[in-house]
Every structure is written in C-alpha cells, then in structure tokens.
C-alpha cells in the first residue's frame, strides 16, 4: 500500500484556488443583501452622551440602525467576556463600535454615518502601560477597579518558578541582563474581516464566516443572539489568511445582529483601513531578563519580568502572558527559573493571538540573551546552545517534562545547510540524553 503520510503533495483544494473559484466570504453576494457599517468612537476614550440617528434615517436607502438595545442576549463577549458588542455608555479605544447603520449599499451607509450626531465626551486616555499601572492612573474603562488584569482575585502578577532563582544567580559566574521590547504587528491577512448572515428556509441563522475556531465563536455568537446553538448554521472553512486574527469575532456578530433585526441577508465588512486601525493586533511585550551562567557555559538561572499591553479588553492577553512565561526561557535546561508576568490595560484596540502567539515574544529576548551570554563567557554561541539545549526528561519552568526534544537536531541541520562546520563533540551530542 502507498503510504501517504510523509508524501509531498499539493493542496487537496488547490485547483479551485488557482482557478479563482474558491468562494471566500466576501464572494457571497445575495439577492436583496443589505450592507452594514459601524459608527465608531472618534476618541481614544469617551463617555457617550447621546446618539441621534434622525438625520441619518432620512438618507434614501437607509434601512435602519443597530444599537446595544437591539442585542437579544449577551452585550459582552470576547475570551475574557469583558468586551462590549456595541458600546452603550463608554468607549475605551479609538474606533470602538457604537452602532451599525444598515442600508442597501456601503455608499449609503457611509453617507448616513456622516449624518449621525454622536455626542461623546472625550476623556484622558492612557497608552503607556507603566503609567496605567500606577495607582491613581485614569482607568481605561469605567468597569475596571484598576488597569491591571487579575489572574486570581487580588493577584496581578502571574508567578511561575522552578528551583530557586536567587540561588541560581548566586551560583553564576556571569550574569547577563537585558531589557527588550517586542513591537505591535497586524495580522494583515490579505482577506479583510467580513461576514455574511441570513435566515434560511428553516429559519436558521446562516453565517458565512472566516473564523479560525468555529466552536468557540459559535458559542459566543449564540449567547449574543440568544439563539440555541442548533439554530445557527456556521459555515466556514475557507479563510483568506488568519494568522491568529480570526480567532476573534470581528464581523459575524454584526452581520448576525443586523440580519436578526431586519430579517434580510446582510454583509458586514471592514475596509482595509478599519482592519488595520481597529481590529486586534499582536500586543507589545516588554521583558527584563537576568541570565546566570557558569564559566563552562552551563546556564544556572533565568529571571524574567514581563509586561504585556492588552489594549482595552482582555481577549487572549492574560492567557498570552502565561503562555509567554512558560516558554520564555527557550529550549534550554535551566535549573532555576522564575517568571513574573503582568497584563495591563491601555486605551488601544485589543491585543490578540498572532502567528507565534506570545512565544516569539519570549524567544526573541531569550535568544538575544544567549548571544550576549556567549559573548560574556567567551564561548562559541553554537556550543553554548548545544550544551544547554533540552534533552528528553528536562523540565520547563511550569514543570512540564520535555519529550521528543529536537533542538540539537534542528541546529545540526541548519548549520549543515548554512555551510557552518560544527566541531565533532557537538555533533556527537543527542537530545535523547545529556
């Protein structure tokens, strides 16, 4: 029998792609379909005094508006359940959705949006997480007690440790310190956020989605719409690039709410500009490292403090702080490790999962440290990494036991391909044991 696993073969669905026949969400254009666009907060932080749709309503082609009062179920969503579906009394980042205008086409939506009279009181935003963390700092949202995420009641620092980091640093011959900032990126999938929703013959709400995770989002949508899961047909599976950005709901809730209210097919999509400015992004981490090492190159300790800018809502950020912490010492055996992580709210669009989610934010500083450690000790950087690389049975900071270790194999393979000759004593090492 042919064995298919291990065989190079083109994508199963590739023919449709090269013929341009694959139906992405925005490719669905239905008879009588309406379009929705969002009224957004013009300020980074504000208190909504009133929204007056009376002039906008008169624009020919306008079908109506959707506000928080039209939401049948939950008015909050997101991984932490703290994000407003539509803002009611406050906005916490520039571009936050306040209402939807629904019309026969997007031109009409835009014309009507210009005529909506939004009375919003601009408040002092806070962008810098160290400012936001100070006692007495302006609150990012009125529903917060402080701008710090609580991992457990009253606990704003997630501590994960193994061994005794103070002892490990005391044992070290060299200590290398560094402070690193990992910037903010956009997923920038070629397909911007979009959704199409309508009711089918059986009165089920059909949603064409580019979701990366149908199950999670279906649950969230059902609670917003107050519909049983079985009343929603959530059709996905064709996605124009996700990279973590489509783990969040950006469009399905709005297309669905408008379809619920007006009982007609509705398309809601973000322009590229809206997508870049107002959708979720990879949030910033700032990390401080203190790495201890013996003269012979053995790592003794790694002490990390990190801060993550969550933006205005929790999303996956608290999870991300923990995930970053668990792997921020790289693929290395270090007997003593301690990570202290904090997650801080600021008045920006929410942070998100993105390719390499929070792992790359920890690998970057760790590898910078490793190169600096090699320089400090005066040891070849490959040798430093080979000596310390995980073997099966080593333990990570959160006490997981490493199985199937392969850092040595990856390094050996890369060196060979790149034309770098490694000494025999390194090539003789095995991930199967130390």
């Amino acid at each position, binding site marked *: 029998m042919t064995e298919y696993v291990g065989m190079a073969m083109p994508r199963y669905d590739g023919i449709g792609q090269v013929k341009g026949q694959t139906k992405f969400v925005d490719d669905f254009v239905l008879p009588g379909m309406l379009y929705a666009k969002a009224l957004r907060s013009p300020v980074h932080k504000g208190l909504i005094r009133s929204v007056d749709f009376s002039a906008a309503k008169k624009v020919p082609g306008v079908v109506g508006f959707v506000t928080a009062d039209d939401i049948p179920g939950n008015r909050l969503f997101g991984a932490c359940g703290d994000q407003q579906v539509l803002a009611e009394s406050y906005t916490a980042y520039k571009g936050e959705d306040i209402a939807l205008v629904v019309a026969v086409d997007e*031109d009409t939506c*835009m*014309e009507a949006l210009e005529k909506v009279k939004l009375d919003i009181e601009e408040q002092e935003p806070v962008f810098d997480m160290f400012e936001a963390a100070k006692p007495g700092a302006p609150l990012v949202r009125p529903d917060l007690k402080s701008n710090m995420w609580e991992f457990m009641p009253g606990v704003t620092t997630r501590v994960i440790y193994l061994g005794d980091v103070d002892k490990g640093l005391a044992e070290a011959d060299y200590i290398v310190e560094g402070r690193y900032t990992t910037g903010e990126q956009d997923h920038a999938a070629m397909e911007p956020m979009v959704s199409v929703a309508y009711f089918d013959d059986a009165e089920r709400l059909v949603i064409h989605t580019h979701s990366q995770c149908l199950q999670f989002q279906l649950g969230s949508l059902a609670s917003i719409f107050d519909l049983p899961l079985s009343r929603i047909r959530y059709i996905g599976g064709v996605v124009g690039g996700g990279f973590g950005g489509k783990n969040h709901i950006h469009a399905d809730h709005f297309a669905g709410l408008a379809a619920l209210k007006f009982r007609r097919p509705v398309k809601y999509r973000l*322009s590229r*500009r809206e997508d870049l400015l107002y959708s979720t992004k990879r949030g910033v981490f700032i990390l401080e490292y203190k790495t201890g090492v013996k003269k012979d190159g053995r790592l003794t300790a790694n002490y990390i403090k990190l801060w993550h800018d969550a933006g205005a809502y929790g999303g996956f950020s608290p999870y991300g702080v923990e995930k970053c912490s668990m792997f921020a010492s790289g693929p290395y055996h270090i007997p003593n490790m301690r990570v202290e992580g904090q997650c801080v709210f600021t008045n920006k669009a929410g942070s998100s999962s993105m390719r390499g989610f929070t792992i790359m934010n920890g690998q970057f500083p760790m590898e910078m440290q490793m190169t600096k450690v090699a320089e400090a000790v005066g040891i070849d950087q490959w040798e430093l990494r080979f000596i310390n690389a995980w073997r099966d049975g080593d333990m990570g900071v959160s006490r997981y036991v490493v199985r199937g270790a392969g850092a040595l194999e990856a390094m050996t393979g890369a060196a060979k391909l790149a034309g770098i000759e490694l000494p025999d004593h390194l090539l003789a090492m095995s991930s199967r044991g130390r």
Partner: protein
Amino acid sequence: MKEVSYFAPTEVGEAAKLLAEYGDKAAILAGGTDLVAQLNYYEVKPAALLYIGGLGLDYVREKGGKLVIGAGTTTAHLLASDLVAQKFPVLAAAAATHGSPAVRTVATIGGNLGTASPAGDLIPPLMVMDADVILASVRGERAVPVKDFFTGPGETVRAADELIVEIQVPLLPGKAVFEKVGRRKAQVCSIVSAAVRLEMDGGVCKDARIVLGSMAPTPLRCPKAEGMLKGKAVDAALIAKCAAQAVAESDPIDDQRATAWYRQKAGTALVGRALTKAAGV
C-alpha cells in the same frame, strides 16, 4: 456618490471647457492611482469625474533641445522609452522605484505632479532639470517651472480650470542621480529621496541642482547648498558639507514612516551619495 457625472473628452479643448464649467468640483482622472483610492475611502466627493486618458497626452518627444513629455505618459511608458533612457536617465531611475508594475502601467507623470505629494518620485528628477509644467485652460496655456509649481502637500498653483497637459524638460548638461530610501525595498513610498545634477568641468562644478523629496511640505530645491558647489573643486569634504547644508534648508516632519531626525540623517547620506556619483569622485 451616485450623482457624480462622468466625462471622457477626446480633445484638450473639450476638457478645458468642462473644467471651466466645473472648476474644483471636477476631479481630474488620469491613471487614478491616487484619486480612486481617495474615492474608495470617501475622502473626496467630486461632482464630476473628468477622465483625460482619451486626450492623447501619452507621448515622449524631443523638440528644440527639450524633452517634451505628455502629462498622460505613464510611468511604464517612461521606463520603456529609449528617449528617456538616453536623454533623461535619472527620470527612468526614479520611475523604476515608483509604485509597482501594475501601478506604473496607469500612473502618469502629470498625475504625479498634480497629486503634489512631497514624496512624489518623479518630481525631484524634473526639478534638477529645470523642467516646466504646461497648464492649459480656456484662457490659454502657461508654463510654470516645476520648482514653483507646488505650494503645499497636495496643493499647487494650478487654477481650478487648468489642466496639466505637458512637461517640458530642457536637456541640461551634466550627470544627474536619484536616490531614495523607504521602509522596504519595493513598492514603497519614500521616507526621503534626493536628486542632484552636477555639471562638471574637470574636477570643478560649473552648475548644480540639489532637490530633496519628503523633506518639506513640497519637493524642495536647496539653493544655498547648490551655491556651495558652483565654481568649486568637488571633493569628499565639500560633498559632506554640501549635503549637510542641503538638509539644513529642509523642514522635515515626524510621520508614520519616520521622524524628522531620521529624515535629516538619511537625507544627508542620500545627498552625499548622489553628489559623489554625479561628481564622479
């Protein structure tokens, strides 16, 4: 957007009449690479679109010691033109960095002038050659030196009833060089650009032009820096001083692409490089 009129005249006179009627309520559509993006994002709301692609303004000719370029000449046409390659190679060098191939097939030199971006790639080469913009209207034609054409970002001396119809480029002697830096290596808006032209006699500079892009509200001539070179033997030390002077004449800002600090630093480097190449030192 539904009530916008569309006109596609086939003669300049016809276009001029329409412009006389509509003035600034008409948007002049050539390649559309700037205008249509603005329409897509509801940033402009013209009463009419005046498409000038049918006016026959896509040409490059040599006439009376000048290179005459129709305003509707596309960047791709400039790149393919033997005349441009031979007589005005610095324009081809800039054109090669302009947008991407699918933009260059439609983007026009007149549009690059009319858009009046301080980052317009084709402008610095035109300015180092003392080129003129020819504007036509029902009132007649006039020539405006490119260096006097811009009044601010997106703003020019073109009256609302005037149409850019031609660019006339004196084939001045000397070697001209274009340099540009952006955030990536292709399809990129310049953070800073520079064009220079040096007419050398032995090691001595007879005439000089230095133009900076993205360093001021408009593309900028640097007359004091030019003055430092004229009549002088050009060496590395003078080039360094001159580059610093050119940047001192500019007024860059912080924006999404870089800070003024960076523009000054990189601008100095680009002018220095361009002068070095142009002087052959």
